[in-house]
């Protein structure tokens, strides 16, 4: 049982793992998530990052915003790089070359580097059972290259490669259920989180770090630029995503599913669940759905969200 207690006043006085001065957009959720995950580390930690907004904006040579050892290699292989670091840290300690008995390895990647191009490396690393935490920063498109659609883009979203046009109204496919794919690998711990529900996120990050084996956190990361909303409502959108059950908060802990935080409250009190329009109407990328000819799409999206929510509730043991 973890003795970790997060004290926000103590944490606010200590140095952070990620520093100010980075070039991420105003209101971007990625540095919020990274900051919160790094508040949960427990000792020597090394971070590997895939190519993406986070990597490019925090390390413009010769400047770096990282206060911990950090490596970036390529787009699709952050899970393999993290495997290499983990394997090397264990063998170097065994041979007496390194003094660190345990080095925690955290891999950050965007949805592009996880759902699509990175899924092979992720699946391989999970199957080999390396002890590392993989944090998916999901902003639901290839934001760094200009808001192109990815496997993580939801149904109906307008991106630059699935624009809302006269004939095709946005993306025609559903969002790939990445957390389910990872759970199917039967790894010890999988969880979803948002930066708005930070105590939940920090608790889950700490648990994932402490678990011996591969762990995965799927974090929702709203993007003011790509989702086309005002910078000040990034956190508000996370709350709406959870309240509409578009992005439920749950964890899979050694075979046992549990809802957590706000999603648990909604499951116990269904009147708290909001309709999907609450989430869609504040984002410019869904504004084309609010026309009479595209209303069926909102209905399809609502049905999909409801089906996933019911299925998730049936699997959870704590309702």
């Amino acid at each position, binding site marked *: 049982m973890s003795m970790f207690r997060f004290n926000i006043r103590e944490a606010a006085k200590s140095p952070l793992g990620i520093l*100010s*001065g980075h070039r991420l957009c105003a209101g971007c959720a990625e540095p919020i998530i990274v900051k919160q995950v790094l508040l949960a580390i427990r000792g020597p930690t090394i971070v590997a990052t895939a190519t993406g907004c986070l990597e490019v904006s925090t390390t413009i040579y010769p400047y770096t915003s990282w206060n911990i050892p950090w490596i970036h290699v390529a787009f699709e292989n952050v899970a393999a790089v993290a495997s290499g670091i983990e394997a090397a840290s264990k063998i170097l300690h065994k041979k007496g070359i390194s003094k660190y008995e345990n080095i925690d390895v955290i891999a950050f990647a965007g949805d592009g580097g996880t759902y699509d191009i990175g899924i092979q490396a992720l699946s391989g690393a999970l199957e080999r059972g390396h002890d590392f935490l993989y944090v998916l920063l999901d902003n639901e498109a290839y934001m760094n290259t200009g808001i192109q659609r990815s496997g993580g883009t939801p149904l109906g979203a307008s991106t630059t490669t699935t624009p809302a046009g006269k004939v095709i109204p946005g993306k025609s496919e559903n969002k790939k259920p990445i957390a389910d794919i990872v759970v199917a690998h039967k790894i010890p711990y999988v969880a979803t989180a948002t930066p708005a529900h930070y105590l939940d996120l920090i608790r889950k990050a700490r648990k994932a770090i402490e678990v011996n084996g591969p762990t995965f956190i799927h974090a929702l990361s709203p993007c003011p630029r790509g989702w086309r909303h005002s910078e000040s409502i990034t956190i508000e959108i996370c709350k709406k995503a959870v309240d509409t059950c578009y992005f439920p908060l749950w964890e899979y802990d050694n075979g046992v599913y549990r809802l957590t935080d706000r999603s648990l409250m909604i499951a116990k009190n269904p009147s708290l669940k909001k309709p999907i329009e609450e989430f869609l109407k504040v984002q410019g990328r869904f504004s084309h759905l609010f026309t009479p000819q595209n209303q069926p799409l909102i209905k399809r999206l609502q049905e999909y969200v409801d089906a996933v929510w019911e299925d998730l509730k049936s699997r959870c043991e704590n309702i």
Partner: protein
Amino acid sequence: MRREVGKLSELRSWREIPIGGVAWKSSLENKTGDWSPFKPKIDQSKCTKCLMCWILCPDMAIGWDGEKVYEKYDYCKGCGICANECPVKCISMVRV
């Protein structure tokens, strides 16, 4: 508020910089405060010191010194998340 061009990083020759592209300068030298003229103003009389603004700031531009919550205008990009999320609404975005 115009920043002087070229002052951010003195360019060095290939013999002087470390090999392998290892970045060495802290980004704290890059004062992103000039990205936006809007800055948060905390009403200290109403602030309950819950530190939600601190934990939700993308730029680590809110500080806590043990006694009071303070703003770091050098780094704040004016996104307004702190003002939007403060539970007692004691932060207002003002033009400086």
